[in-house]
């Protein structure tokens, strides 16, 4: 087993503020590494360092065995980059955008055309091929951007929040593309704020928070890391939910979190389940759904950081506003 990316102790400061605070990272060749973290956690900074756009203040990183600082050209020959914001030229057509990249990568004129046609077809953009990219929808632009990063058939692909702002259909399409690339042997580093996305695609997940790696492992390991199982319940009558919540609280003696539809509680012992069912029955609560499952990555994140990804997002967005 070889590693496509190896980074040790990456530190990056912006005006004294530590965006990365000693990040170690390993991506296995041919696998998907998911970098999961809320706004401002350092995902983009990590990607920019690993794609030679930014130099780390401390630490080192190798991509395909080449040092990102000392051998950037060799690294650039291996990678494709789809940044967080679609980096296509809005005034050029889809074809022109892709042909330009192909020509820069050393394709001759006819090869460049052929490659562009092939990619536009693959990303369902053939009909819009001749239109300026500024007339594309957000999703189309993202697909064109991804196509542009694949022109040179990179061995290693960086995807920085590739599905942010995509509708479910486009998102599923993109997931399929990523799976297809992995089948072709491409190594993928994918950043995301969506726990589900990391769970769906990644072989390994690294959780970033405030520029530090707070956890790393397979999705399975991460879920185990959070330890408990989760009992989740939904009542037929929403009005009965609060009564149900009280019952579960009494049985498990742990704090129950509930929204308007569901109640959740971490449990250590699966034996509480029959007891819960019995008491609910006694009190005449009609149960629509009752399950015992491994925690979701959202709950893992909560367990790891003590705060939910959403809370952090709200805070970071406010900071973002101040910065602009």
């Amino acid at each position, binding site marked *: 087993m070889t590693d496509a990316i190896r980074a040790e102790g990456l530190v990056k400061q912006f005006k004294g503020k530590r965006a990365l605070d000693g990040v170690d990272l390993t991506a296995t060749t041919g696998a998907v590494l998911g970098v999961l973290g809320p706004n401002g956690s350092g995902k983009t900074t990590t990607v920019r360092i690993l794609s030679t756009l930014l130099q780390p203040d401390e630490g080192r990183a190798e991509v395909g065995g080449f040092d990102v600082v000392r051998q950037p050209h060799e690294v650039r020959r291996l990678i494709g980059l789809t940044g967080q914001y679609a980096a296509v030229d809005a005034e050029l*057509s889809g074809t022109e955008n892709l042909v330009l990249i192909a020509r820069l990568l050393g394709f001759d004129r006819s090869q460049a055309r052929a490659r562009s046609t092939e990619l536009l077809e693959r990303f369902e953009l053939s009909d819009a091929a001749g239109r300026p990219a500024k007339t594309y929808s957000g999703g189309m632009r993202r697909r064109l951007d991804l196509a542009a990063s694949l022109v040179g058939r990179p061995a290693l692909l960086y995807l920085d929040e590739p599905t942010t702002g995509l509708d479910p259909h486009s998102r599923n399409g993109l997931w399929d593309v990523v799976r297809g690339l992995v089948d072709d042997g491409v190594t993928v580093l994918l950043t995301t704020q969506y726990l589900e996305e990391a769970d769906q695609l990644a072989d390994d997940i690294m959780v970033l928070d405030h520029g530090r790696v707070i956890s790393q492992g397979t999705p399975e390991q991460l879920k185990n890391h959070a330890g408990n199982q989760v009992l989740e319940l939904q009542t037929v009558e929403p009005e009965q939910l609060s009564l149900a919540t009280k019952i579960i609280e009494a049985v498990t003696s742990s704090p129950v979190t509930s929204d308007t539809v569901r109640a959740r509680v971490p449990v250590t012992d699966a034996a509480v389940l029959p007891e819960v069912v019995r008491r609910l029955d006694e009190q005449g609560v009609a149960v629509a759904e009752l399950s015992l499952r491994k925690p979701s990555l959202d709950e893992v994140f909560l367990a790891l950081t003590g705060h939910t990804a959403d809370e952090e997002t709200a805070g970071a967005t406010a900071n973002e506003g101040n910065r602009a």
Partner: protein
Amino acid sequence: MSAVTSPSRSDLPAGAPAAPGSITPISTVQNGLQLAWRSVLKIKANPEEVLGLTFMPIMFVTLFVFVFGQAMMGDWQTYRDFLMPGIIAQSVVFATLGTGFALCQDVEKGIFDRFRSLPIARSAPLIGAILGDLVRYSITVVMVLVVGLAIGFRPEGGVLGVLGAAAVVLLFAFALCWMSAFVGMMVRTPMAVQSFGMILMFPLTFGSSAFVDPQTMPSWMRVVAENNPVTHLVDAMRGLMLGGDVAGPVAWTLLWSAIFVGVFFPLAVWAYRRRT
């Protein structure tokens, strides 16, 4: 680190041409030309740009000649001949703002990130942008000339004189656009390039011999105007197009161009490398 091996290109699906092995001056120029092609495509794709490049010269020449002509020099024909070299210079000097604007936009939109993640010379996007802009400046020169010819401008210098003047103004523009590129790399938004550029360009063009003979200006303004690089440029163009002193102003223009390149080329490259 011995376990780290490079994913070899032979593992990849067939059909990918070998990515450029190393950066050579030839590959840099090739990439620069490919990126210049992009700038030219953008002119074509952008109707406002085409409108700006064609309509502005028509408007400027017409307004200046017919509004100010009589008052300036007694009759509009004399002022037209005086004005033409000046207005070509002014149009091109203002057009250099576009360089900084476009570069800033590319950085802001992340398009440069894509280029910089490709195995091409880091300077290629900068070279491409500036080569592409030379095309834009040439169009500007031709458009202003066409309008001038349409209202009876018949330069005594003939075709050679006009070509000479065009060469001088394009050289000057090439030098000046490094200043614009520097501004574009230093400020955050294209709008800021616009405002900042205007502050630079207005005194540079209007405080020169482009529209008015500096002899008529109050003494302090005259000193400014006579030492303004644009004055040397316009005087050189007048000499070439209309007859008169050529060697002196051309030499000054070349000197100023060299100064602009000498100062702003390194600054622009520095700012470009540092902008992340």
